[in-house]
Protein backbone atom coordinates (compact mmCIF):
# COMPACT_ATOMS: atom_id res chain seq x y z
CA UNK A 1 0.00 0.00 0.00
CA UNK A 2 2.73 2.43 0.93
CA UNK A 3 5.57 0.69 -0.79
CA UNK A 4 6.24 3.65 -2.98
CA UNK A 5 6.48 6.13 -0.17
CA UNK A 6 9.63 6.99 1.72
CA UNK A 7 11.38 3.95 3.20
CA UNK A 8 12.25 4.63 6.82
CA UNK A 9 13.60 1.27 7.89
CA UNK A 10 15.92 -0.46 5.45
CA UNK A 11 18.26 -3.33 6.18
CA UNK A 12 20.70 -4.69 3.70
CA UNK A 13 21.90 -8.26 4.07
CA UNK A 14 21.40 -8.12 7.82
CA UNK A 15 23.07 -11.15 9.37
CA UNK A 16 23.68 -12.24 12.93
CA UNK A 17 25.63 -15.30 13.96
CA UNK A 18 25.45 -16.42 17.56
CA UNK A 19 27.68 -19.22 18.70
CA UNK A 20 28.23 -20.61 15.21
CA UNK A 21 24.54 -20.57 14.37
CA UNK A 22 23.17 -18.09 11.87
CA UNK A 23 20.19 -16.62 13.66
CA UNK A 24 19.42 -13.94 11.12
CA UNK A 25 20.54 -14.48 7.57
CA UNK A 26 20.71 -11.82 4.88
CA UNK A 27 17.49 -10.05 5.82
CA UNK A 28 16.48 -7.08 3.68
CA UNK A 29 13.66 -5.28 5.41
CA UNK A 30 11.93 -2.33 3.82
CA UNK A 31 9.36 -0.46 5.85
CA UNK A 32 7.73 2.65 4.45
CA UNK A 33 6.53 5.68 6.36
CA UNK A 34 3.05 5.12 7.74
CA UNK A 35 3.19 1.36 7.33
CA UNK A 36 1.93 -0.98 9.97
CA UNK A 37 4.43 -3.68 9.32
CA UNK A 38 3.60 -7.12 10.64
CA UNK A 39 6.86 -8.96 11.23
CA UNK A 40 5.90 -12.60 11.39
CA UNK A 41 7.63 -15.84 12.04
CA UNK A 42 7.56 -18.83 14.34
CA UNK A 43 9.28 -18.61 17.71
CA UNK A 44 13.03 -18.67 17.31
CA UNK A 45 12.93 -17.53 13.68
CA UNK A 46 15.04 -14.46 14.40
CA UNK A 47 12.41 -11.77 14.93
CA UNK A 48 13.65 -10.52 18.27
CA UNK A 49 17.28 -10.70 17.21
CA UNK A 50 16.47 -8.61 14.15
CA UNK A 51 14.60 -6.08 16.27
CA UNK A 52 17.43 -5.88 18.79
CA UNK A 53 19.79 -5.07 15.97
CA UNK A 54 17.40 -2.42 14.65
CA UNK A 55 17.47 -0.76 18.07
CA UNK A 56 21.24 -0.97 18.39
CA UNK A 57 21.02 -3.40 21.31
CA UNK A 58 23.03 -5.99 19.44
CA UNK A 59 25.54 -5.66 16.64
CA UNK A 60 24.97 -7.27 13.28
CA UNK A 61 27.62 -9.78 12.23
CA UNK A 62 27.33 -8.28 8.78
CA UNK A 63 24.95 -6.12 6.80
CA UNK A 64 23.71 -2.59 7.24
CA UNK A 65 20.78 -0.92 8.92
CA UNK A 66 19.45 2.45 7.90
CA UNK A 67 16.60 4.05 9.83
CA UNK A 68 15.31 7.49 8.81
CA UNK A 69 18.05 7.25 6.18
CA UNK A 70 20.73 7.25 8.88
CA UNK A 71 23.24 4.52 9.63
CA UNK A 72 22.51 2.96 13.03
CA UNK A 73 26.20 2.54 13.76
CA UNK A 74 26.97 6.20 13.24
CA UNK A 75 23.86 7.99 14.37
CA UNK A 76 22.30 5.66 16.91
CA UNK A 77 21.22 8.36 19.33
CA UNK A 78 19.68 10.55 16.64
CA UNK A 79 17.67 7.56 15.41
CA UNK A 80 16.61 6.38 18.85
CA UNK A 81 15.27 9.83 19.66
CA UNK A 82 12.49 9.17 17.17
CA UNK A 83 11.88 5.53 18.07
CA UNK A 84 9.72 4.06 20.80
CA UNK A 85 10.13 0.41 21.56
CA UNK A 86 8.90 -2.54 23.55
CA UNK A 87 11.17 -5.55 23.22
CA UNK A 88 10.02 -9.05 24.19
CA UNK A 89 8.65 -8.52 27.65
CA UNK A 90 7.96 -5.08 29.09
CA UNK A 91 10.66 -3.35 31.09
CA UNK A 92 9.67 -1.82 34.36
CA UNK A 93 10.89 -0.97 37.81
CA UNK A 94 8.72 -3.03 40.12
CA UNK A 95 9.23 -0.90 43.20
CA UNK A 96 7.92 2.22 41.44
CA UNK A 97 4.37 2.99 40.42
CA UNK A 98 3.26 3.50 36.84
CA UNK A 99 3.69 7.26 36.87
CA UNK A 100 7.16 7.01 38.37
CA UNK A 101 8.16 4.41 35.83
CA UNK A 102 7.13 6.74 33.06
CA UNK A 103 8.79 9.68 34.79
CA UNK A 104 12.12 7.80 34.96
CA UNK A 105 11.93 7.36 31.20
CA UNK A 106 10.61 10.85 30.57
CA UNK A 107 13.66 12.33 32.26
CA UNK A 108 15.84 10.46 29.82
CA UNK A 109 13.82 11.53 26.82
CA UNK A 110 13.14 15.07 27.90
CA UNK A 111 9.48 14.79 26.90
CA UNK A 112 7.02 17.25 28.42
CA UNK A 113 5.50 16.23 31.77
CA UNK A 114 1.96 16.38 30.44
CA UNK A 115 2.81 13.52 28.11
CA UNK A 116 2.73 11.05 31.02
CA UNK A 117 -0.97 11.58 31.62
CA UNK A 118 -1.61 11.44 27.91
CA UNK A 119 0.04 8.06 27.41
CA UNK A 120 -1.54 6.67 30.57
CA UNK A 121 -4.90 7.66 29.15
CA UNK A 122 -4.11 6.05 25.79
CA UNK A 123 -3.37 2.70 27.43
CA UNK A 124 -6.17 3.20 29.97
CA UNK A 125 -4.00 2.96 33.06
CA UNK A 126 -4.95 6.32 34.53
CA UNK A 127 -6.84 4.59 37.35
CA UNK A 128 -3.86 2.40 38.27
CA UNK A 129 -1.19 5.08 37.94
CA UNK A 130 -0.36 5.16 41.65
CA UNK A 131 0.01 1.43 42.23
CA UNK A 132 3.43 -0.23 42.34
CA UNK A 133 4.02 -1.98 39.06
CA UNK A 134 5.04 -5.17 40.91
CA UNK A 135 1.35 -5.87 41.47
CA UNK A 136 0.34 -5.34 37.84
CA UNK A 137 -0.99 -8.18 35.74
CA UNK A 138 1.03 -9.10 32.68
CA UNK A 139 -1.50 -7.33 30.48
CA UNK A 140 -1.16 -4.14 32.49
CA UNK A 141 2.63 -4.33 32.39
CA UNK A 142 2.37 -4.83 28.66
CA UNK A 143 0.16 -1.73 28.40
CA UNK A 144 2.59 0.22 30.54
CA UNK A 145 5.32 -0.94 28.17
CA UNK A 146 3.37 0.45 25.24
CA UNK A 147 2.79 3.68 27.13
CA UNK A 148 6.55 3.92 27.69
CA UNK A 149 7.16 3.34 24.00
CA UNK A 150 4.73 6.14 23.14
CA UNK A 151 6.15 8.58 25.64
CA UNK A 152 8.58 10.32 23.31
CA UNK A 153 6.04 10.82 20.51
CA UNK A 154 8.00 8.44 18.30
CA UNK A 155 7.87 8.42 14.52
CA UNK A 156 8.64 4.73 14.56
CA UNK A 157 7.08 2.42 17.10
CA UNK A 158 8.69 -0.99 17.49
CA UNK A 159 6.58 -3.54 19.34
CA UNK A 160 8.11 -6.97 19.72
CA UNK A 161 5.51 -9.62 20.51
CA UNK A 162 3.31 -7.20 22.43
CA UNK A 163 0.73 -9.87 23.10
CA UNK A 164 3.13 -12.62 24.12
CA UNK A 165 1.96 -14.49 27.17
CA UNK A 166 -1.42 -12.78 27.35
CA UNK A 167 -4.76 -14.51 27.58
CA UNK A 168 -7.22 -14.06 24.71
CA UNK A 169 -8.89 -11.11 26.41
CA UNK A 170 -5.53 -9.47 26.91
CA UNK A 171 -4.56 -10.11 23.30
CA UNK A 172 -7.80 -8.57 22.14
CA UNK A 173 -7.21 -5.57 24.38
CA UNK A 174 -3.69 -4.94 23.10
CA UNK A 175 -4.83 -5.34 19.51
CA UNK A 176 -7.61 -2.82 19.99
CA UNK A 177 -5.12 -0.51 21.64
CA UNK A 178 -2.67 -0.68 18.76
CA UNK A 179 -5.44 -0.16 16.25
CA UNK A 180 -6.64 2.85 18.18
CA UNK A 181 -3.25 4.54 18.20
CA UNK A 182 -3.44 7.84 16.42
CA UNK A 183 -2.83 7.07 12.77
CA UNK A 184 -3.12 10.68 11.73
CA UNK A 185 0.33 11.56 13.01
CA UNK A 186 1.85 9.26 10.45
CA UNK A 187 3.56 7.04 12.96
CA UNK A 188 5.07 3.90 11.49
CA UNK A 189 4.61 0.70 13.46
CA UNK A 190 6.72 -2.43 13.34
CA UNK A 191 4.94 -5.17 15.22
CA UNK A 192 6.27 -8.68 15.49
CA UNK A 193 4.27 -11.75 16.24
CA UNK A 194 4.24 -15.49 15.75
CA UNK A 195 0.55 -15.38 14.96
CA UNK A 196 -0.59 -14.12 11.59
CA UNK A 197 -4.15 -13.81 12.81
CA UNK A 198 -2.96 -11.32 15.36
CA UNK A 199 -1.60 -8.76 12.94
CA UNK A 200 -3.72 -9.68 9.95
CA UNK A 201 -6.42 -7.13 10.72
CA UNK A 202 -4.10 -4.23 11.27
CA UNK A 203 -0.98 -4.73 9.19
CA UNK A 204 -0.62 -3.01 5.85
CA UNK A 205 2.58 -4.83 5.03
CA UNK A 206 3.87 -8.18 6.11
CA UNK A 207 7.33 -9.65 6.38
CA UNK A 208 7.65 -13.33 7.16
CA UNK A 209 10.86 -14.69 8.60
CA UNK A 210 11.66 -18.37 9.05
CA UNK A 211 14.95 -19.88 10.16
CA UNK A 212 16.55 -16.48 10.00
CA UNK A 213 15.60 -15.75 6.41
CA UNK A 214 13.01 -13.31 5.18
CA UNK A 215 10.85 -15.47 2.96
CA UNK A 216 8.08 -13.03 2.16
CA UNK A 217 7.73 -9.30 2.19
CA UNK A 218 4.88 -7.49 0.56
CA UNK A 219 1.56 -5.81 1.12
CA UNK A 220 -1.03 -7.74 3.04
CA UNK A 221 -3.26 -7.73 -0.09
CA UNK A 222 -0.81 -9.86 -1.99
CA UNK A 223 -0.95 -12.39 0.80
CA UNK A 224 -4.73 -12.26 0.75
CA UNK A 225 -4.71 -12.83 -3.00
CA UNK A 226 -2.70 -15.95 -2.46
CA UNK A 227 -5.21 -17.04 0.08
CA UNK A 228 -8.10 -16.61 -2.27
CA UNK A 229 -10.02 -19.64 -3.32
CA UNK A 230 -9.26 -21.98 -6.13
CA UNK A 231 -11.93 -23.94 -7.92
CA UNK A 232 -11.72 -27.63 -7.37
CA UNK A 233 -13.08 -29.96 -10.01
CA UNK A 234 -14.21 -33.45 -9.17
CA UNK A 235 -14.14 -35.42 -12.43
CA UNK A 236 -13.63 -38.93 -13.69
CA UNK A 237 -10.01 -39.46 -14.77
CA UNK A 238 -8.72 -36.12 -13.49
CA UNK A 239 -5.22 -36.51 -14.94
CA UNK A 240 -6.54 -36.78 -18.48
CA UNK A 241 -8.93 -33.91 -17.77
CA UNK A 242 -5.99 -31.82 -16.57
CA UNK A 243 -4.09 -32.42 -19.83
CA UNK A 244 -7.18 -31.59 -21.83
CA UNK A 245 -7.71 -28.32 -19.96
CA UNK A 246 -4.07 -27.36 -20.35
CA UNK A 247 -4.24 -27.99 -24.07
CA UNK A 248 -7.07 -25.46 -24.23
CA UNK A 249 -5.04 -22.96 -22.24
CA UNK A 250 -6.90 -23.10 -18.93
CA UNK A 251 -4.81 -22.51 -15.77
CA UNK A 252 -5.39 -25.99 -14.41
CA UNK A 253 -3.27 -27.72 -11.82
CA UNK A 254 -3.04 -31.38 -10.92
CA UNK A 255 -1.23 -32.46 -7.77
CA UNK A 256 -2.08 -36.19 -8.05
CA UNK A 257 -4.97 -35.88 -5.65
CA UNK A 258 -7.06 -33.04 -6.92
CA UNK A 259 -7.61 -30.99 -10.02
CA UNK A 260 -7.90 -27.27 -9.45
CA UNK A 261 -8.02 -24.08 -11.44
CA UNK A 262 -6.85 -20.77 -10.02
CA UNK A 263 -8.79 -17.54 -10.03
CA UNK A 264 -11.31 -17.82 -12.79
CA UNK A 265 -14.47 -15.88 -13.60
CA UNK A 266 -17.86 -17.48 -14.18
CA UNK A 267 -17.49 -17.63 -17.96
CA UNK A 268 -14.17 -19.44 -17.72
CA UNK A 269 -15.64 -21.98 -15.33
CA UNK A 270 -18.62 -22.49 -17.61
CA UNK A 271 -16.24 -22.97 -20.54
CA UNK A 272 -14.22 -25.53 -18.60
CA UNK A 273 -17.26 -27.50 -17.58
CA UNK A 274 -18.73 -27.63 -21.05
CA UNK A 275 -15.35 -28.63 -22.51
CA UNK A 276 -15.11 -31.47 -19.99
CA UNK A 277 -18.64 -32.65 -20.64
CA UNK A 278 -18.12 -32.53 -24.39
CA UNK A 279 -15.04 -34.69 -23.98
CA UNK A 280 -17.07 -37.26 -22.07
CA UNK A 281 -15.64 -36.60 -18.61
CA UNK A 282 -18.09 -36.99 -15.82
CA UNK A 283 -18.20 -33.88 -13.69
CA UNK A 284 -19.09 -34.70 -10.08
CA UNK A 285 -18.27 -31.51 -8.29
CA UNK A 286 -17.28 -27.93 -8.98
CA UNK A 287 -16.48 -26.35 -5.67
CA UNK A 288 -14.60 -23.39 -4.28
CA UNK A 289 -11.69 -24.11 -2.00
CA UNK A 290 -10.61 -21.53 0.55
CA UNK A 291 -7.06 -21.40 1.72
CA UNK A 292 -6.79 -19.49 4.96
CA UNK A 293 -4.02 -16.96 5.43
CA UNK A 294 -2.96 -19.06 8.34
CA UNK A 295 -2.42 -22.13 6.21
CA UNK A 296 -0.33 -20.13 3.75
CA UNK A 297 1.68 -18.80 6.62
CA UNK A 298 2.19 -22.32 7.95
CA UNK A 299 3.20 -23.52 4.53
CA UNK A 300 5.76 -20.76 4.24
CA UNK A 301 7.25 -21.11 7.67
CA UNK A 302 7.32 -24.88 7.73
CA UNK A 303 5.82 -27.30 10.18
CA UNK A 304 7.56 -25.99 13.27
CA UNK A 305 5.23 -23.01 13.38
CA UNK A 306 3.92 -22.66 16.86
CA UNK A 307 0.18 -22.58 16.78
Amino acid at each position, binding site marked *: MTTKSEIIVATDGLTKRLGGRTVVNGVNLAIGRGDIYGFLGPNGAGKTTTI*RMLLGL*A*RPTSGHIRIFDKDIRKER*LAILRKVGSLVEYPS*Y*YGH*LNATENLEAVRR*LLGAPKSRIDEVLAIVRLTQEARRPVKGFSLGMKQRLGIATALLGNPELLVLDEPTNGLDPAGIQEIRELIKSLPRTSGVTILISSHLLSEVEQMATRVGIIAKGELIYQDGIERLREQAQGRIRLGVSDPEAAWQLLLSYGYPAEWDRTKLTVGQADDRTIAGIVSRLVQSDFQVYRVEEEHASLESIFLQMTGSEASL
Partner: protein
Amino acid sequence: MFRSEWLKIRRSVLWLIAAVSPLIASLFGLFGLRLQEGEFPWTETLSLMSVLHAMLFLPLLTGIFAALVCRYEHNGGGWKAMLAMPVSRTQIYVVKFAVVMGLLALTQALLLIALIAVGLSRGFDDPIPWRMLLTSFGGGWIACLPLAALQLFVSIALQSFAAPLAINVILTLPNIMIVNSARYAPYDPWAQPMLAMLPRDSMSYAALNLSAESLYLVVLGSFCVFFAAGWRYFVRKAV
Protein backbone atom coordinates in the same frame (compact mmCIF):
# COMPACT_ATOMS: atom_id res chain seq x y z
CA MET B 1 20.02 11.12 33.53
CA PHE B 2 20.93 11.61 37.20
CA ARG B 3 17.40 12.65 37.93
CA SER B 4 16.08 9.50 36.33
CA GLU B 5 18.46 7.42 38.43
CA TRP B 6 17.44 9.35 41.52
CA LEU B 7 13.84 8.42 40.95
CA LYS B 8 14.77 4.75 40.79
CA ILE B 9 16.79 4.69 44.00
CA ARG B 10 14.55 6.99 45.98
CA ARG B 11 12.24 4.20 47.08
CA SER B 12 14.86 1.60 47.58
CA VAL B 13 16.42 -0.26 50.49
CA LEU B 14 19.71 1.45 49.65
CA TRP B 15 19.13 4.12 52.25
CA LEU B 16 18.75 1.69 55.10
CA ILE B 17 21.86 -0.15 54.08
CA ALA B 18 23.85 3.06 53.94
CA ALA B 19 23.01 3.71 57.58
CA VAL B 20 23.88 0.27 58.94
CA SER B 21 27.62 0.61 59.20
CA PRO B 22 27.57 4.06 60.82
CA LEU B 23 25.05 2.75 63.34
CA ILE B 24 27.18 -0.21 64.31
CA ALA B 25 30.22 2.01 64.53
CA SER B 26 28.35 4.38 66.84
CA LEU B 27 27.60 1.54 69.20
CA PHE B 28 31.29 0.72 69.23
CA GLY B 29 32.11 4.31 69.91
CA LEU B 30 29.54 4.74 72.68
CA PHE B 31 30.13 1.57 74.61
CA GLY B 32 33.48 0.24 73.57
CA LEU B 33 35.67 3.22 74.18
CA ARG B 34 37.97 3.09 77.20
CA LEU B 35 40.09 6.18 77.26
CA GLN B 36 43.24 6.53 79.30
CA GLU B 37 44.96 9.66 80.40
CA GLY B 38 47.27 11.25 77.90
CA GLU B 39 45.72 9.75 74.79
CA PHE B 40 44.22 11.66 71.93
CA PRO B 41 40.52 10.98 72.33
CA TRP B 42 39.54 11.79 68.74
CA THR B 43 42.22 9.63 67.23
CA GLU B 44 41.30 6.75 69.50
CA THR B 45 37.64 7.06 68.70
CA LEU B 46 38.34 7.25 65.00
CA SER B 47 40.38 4.07 65.00
CA LEU B 48 37.86 2.26 67.09
CA MET B 49 34.89 3.29 65.02
CA SER B 50 36.44 2.97 61.63
CA VAL B 51 38.35 -0.27 61.94
CA LEU B 52 35.43 -2.58 61.28
CA HIS B 53 33.86 -0.13 58.90
CA ALA B 54 36.95 0.32 56.78
CA MET B 55 38.07 -3.26 56.89
CA LEU B 56 34.76 -4.93 56.11
CA PHE B 57 31.69 -2.76 55.78
CA LEU B 58 32.98 -0.19 53.39
CA PRO B 59 34.25 -2.69 50.79
CA LEU B 60 31.13 -4.81 51.26
CA LEU B 61 28.85 -1.82 50.93
CA THR B 62 30.57 -0.87 47.71
CA GLY B 63 29.62 -4.23 46.31
CA ILE B 64 26.08 -4.05 47.64
CA PHE B 65 25.48 -0.59 46.21
CA ALA B 66 26.88 -1.59 42.83
CA ALA B 67 24.74 -4.71 42.79
CA LEU B 68 21.63 -2.80 43.83
CA VAL B 69 21.87 -0.10 41.18
CA CYS B 70 22.09 -2.88 38.61
CA ARG B 71 19.52 -5.12 40.22
CA TYR B 72 16.45 -3.19 39.18
CA GLU B 73 17.78 -3.00 35.64
CA HIS B 74 18.40 -6.75 35.46
CA ASN B 75 15.08 -7.60 37.07
CA GLY B 76 12.70 -5.61 34.96
CA GLY B 77 14.58 -5.69 31.67
CA GLY B 78 15.68 -2.13 32.31
CA TRP B 79 18.99 -2.38 30.45
CA LYS B 80 17.24 -3.22 27.24
CA ALA B 81 14.78 -0.39 27.60
CA MET B 82 17.37 2.12 28.69
CA LEU B 83 19.85 1.23 25.98
CA ALA B 84 17.15 1.58 23.35
CA MET B 85 16.75 5.18 24.41
CA PRO B 86 18.65 8.14 23.10
CA VAL B 87 21.32 8.10 25.79
CA SER B 88 24.86 6.97 25.23
CA ARG B 89 26.11 3.89 26.97
CA THR B 90 29.08 5.76 28.34
CA GLN B 91 26.73 8.21 29.96
CA ILE B 92 24.71 5.44 31.58
CA TYR B 93 27.85 3.77 32.84
CA VAL B 94 29.30 6.94 34.29
CA VAL B 95 26.02 7.83 35.99
CA LYS B 96 25.70 4.38 37.54
CA PHE B 97 29.23 4.66 38.81
CA ALA B 98 28.62 8.14 40.15
CA VAL B 99 25.52 6.92 41.99
CA VAL B 100 27.53 4.18 43.69
CA MET B 101 30.20 6.66 44.71
CA GLY B 102 27.52 9.10 45.86
CA LEU B 103 26.00 6.47 48.12
CA LEU B 104 29.42 5.68 49.53
CA ALA B 105 29.97 9.37 50.18
CA LEU B 106 26.70 9.39 52.05
CA THR B 107 27.81 6.44 54.16
CA GLN B 108 31.08 8.16 54.94
CA ALA B 109 29.26 11.35 55.85
CA LEU B 110 26.91 9.46 58.17
CA LEU B 111 29.83 7.80 59.89
CA LEU B 112 31.60 11.11 60.26
CA ILE B 113 28.49 12.62 61.82
CA ALA B 114 28.18 9.61 64.12
CA LEU B 115 31.80 9.98 65.17
CA ILE B 116 31.45 13.65 65.96
CA ALA B 117 28.23 12.98 67.83
CA VAL B 118 29.94 10.32 69.92
CA GLY B 119 32.83 12.64 70.62
CA LEU B 120 30.65 15.53 71.61
CA SER B 121 28.38 13.39 73.76
CA ARG B 122 31.38 12.15 75.70
CA GLY B 123 32.68 15.65 76.08
CA PHE B 124 36.18 15.39 74.63
CA ASP B 125 38.28 18.33 75.64
CA ASP B 126 40.37 18.50 72.49
CA PRO B 127 38.95 20.46 69.58
CA ILE B 128 37.60 18.41 66.67
CA PRO B 129 40.60 17.54 64.48
CA TRP B 130 38.89 18.32 61.18
CA ARG B 131 41.98 17.87 59.13
CA MET B 132 42.60 14.35 60.31
CA LEU B 133 38.96 13.35 60.11
CA LEU B 134 38.44 14.67 56.61
CA THR B 135 41.65 13.06 55.37
CA SER B 136 40.55 9.80 56.84
CA PHE B 137 37.00 9.82 55.50
CA GLY B 138 37.91 11.34 52.16
CA GLY B 139 40.78 8.92 51.77
CA GLY B 140 38.53 5.98 52.58
CA TRP B 141 36.10 7.16 49.98
CA ILE B 142 38.73 7.56 47.29
CA ALA B 143 40.12 4.14 48.15
CA CYS B 144 36.70 2.74 47.22
CA LEU B 145 37.00 3.95 43.62
CA PRO B 146 38.65 0.79 42.23
CA LEU B 147 36.34 -1.44 44.23
CA ALA B 148 33.28 0.37 42.97
CA ALA B 149 34.54 0.13 39.41
CA LEU B 150 35.19 -3.58 39.63
CA GLN B 151 31.93 -4.33 41.41
CA LEU B 152 29.95 -2.31 38.90
CA PHE B 153 31.61 -4.24 36.09
CA VAL B 154 30.78 -7.58 37.73
CA SER B 155 27.25 -6.51 38.63
CA ILE B 156 26.49 -5.41 35.09
CA ALA B 157 27.94 -8.57 33.62
CA LEU B 158 26.11 -10.97 35.91
CA GLN B 159 22.34 -11.20 35.97
CA SER B 160 22.37 -12.64 39.44
CA PHE B 161 22.29 -10.44 42.49
CA ALA B 162 24.17 -12.82 44.75
CA ALA B 163 27.12 -13.67 42.51
CA PRO B 164 28.75 -10.23 42.49
CA LEU B 165 28.24 -10.03 46.24
CA ALA B 166 29.87 -13.41 46.74
CA ILE B 167 32.85 -12.27 44.68
CA ASN B 168 32.99 -9.16 46.77
CA VAL B 169 32.98 -11.07 50.05
CA ILE B 170 35.66 -13.43 48.82
CA LEU B 171 37.86 -10.50 47.91
CA THR B 172 37.12 -8.56 51.06
CA LEU B 173 37.53 -11.17 53.79
CA PRO B 174 41.28 -11.65 53.30
CA ASN B 175 41.56 -8.04 54.44
CA ILE B 176 41.54 -9.23 58.00
CA MET B 177 44.89 -10.87 57.47
CA ILE B 178 46.33 -8.91 54.64
CA VAL B 179 46.36 -5.56 56.41
CA ASN B 180 49.00 -7.05 58.65
CA SER B 181 51.31 -7.61 55.78
CA ALA B 182 53.55 -4.80 54.71
CA ARG B 183 54.36 -6.81 51.65
CA TYR B 184 50.93 -7.44 50.15
CA ALA B 185 48.54 -4.96 51.67
CA PRO B 186 49.75 -2.00 49.62
CA TYR B 187 48.87 -3.86 46.43
CA ASP B 188 45.50 -5.24 47.43
CA PRO B 189 42.81 -2.76 46.42
CA TRP B 190 40.45 -4.20 48.98
CA ALA B 191 42.78 -3.30 51.80
CA GLN B 192 43.14 0.30 50.70
CA PRO B 193 40.04 1.74 52.39
CA MET B 194 41.37 0.53 55.69
CA LEU B 195 44.88 1.78 55.07
CA ALA B 196 43.49 5.11 54.05
CA MET B 197 41.04 5.54 56.90
CA LEU B 198 42.87 4.48 59.99
CA PRO B 199 44.97 7.11 61.70
CA ARG B 200 48.59 6.47 60.90
CA ASP B 201 49.98 6.23 64.35
CA SER B 202 47.28 4.46 66.24
CA MET B 203 47.55 0.88 65.18
CA SER B 204 50.36 -1.52 64.93
CA TYR B 205 49.48 -2.95 61.55
CA ALA B 206 52.67 -3.11 59.63
CA ALA B 207 51.24 -1.85 56.39
CA LEU B 208 50.04 1.38 57.94
CA ASN B 209 53.51 2.79 57.82
CA LEU B 210 53.51 3.07 54.10
CA SER B 211 53.46 6.40 52.39
CA ALA B 212 50.27 7.92 51.13
CA GLU B 213 51.81 8.28 47.68
CA SER B 214 52.14 4.56 47.16
CA LEU B 215 48.60 3.99 48.37
CA TYR B 216 47.13 6.48 45.95
CA LEU B 217 49.18 5.09 43.14
CA VAL B 218 47.72 1.65 43.72
CA VAL B 219 44.24 3.03 44.21
CA LEU B 220 44.18 5.19 41.11
CA GLY B 221 46.03 2.65 39.01
CA SER B 222 43.64 -0.18 39.77
CA PHE B 223 40.70 2.19 39.44
CA CYS B 224 41.72 3.13 35.91
CA VAL B 225 42.14 -0.51 34.91
CA PHE B 226 38.83 -1.67 36.40
CA PHE B 227 36.85 1.29 35.20
CA ALA B 228 38.18 1.08 31.67
CA ALA B 229 37.52 -2.66 31.53
CA GLY B 230 33.96 -2.27 32.83
CA TRP B 231 33.21 0.61 30.54
CA ARG B 232 34.55 -1.17 27.48
CA TYR B 233 32.53 -4.24 28.34
CA PHE B 234 29.33 -2.26 28.83
CA VAL B 235 29.68 -0.28 25.61
CA ARG B 236 30.02 -3.50 23.64
CA LYS B 237 27.57 -5.61 25.58
CA ALA B 238 24.68 -7.02 23.61
CA VAL B 239 21.44 -6.98 25.57
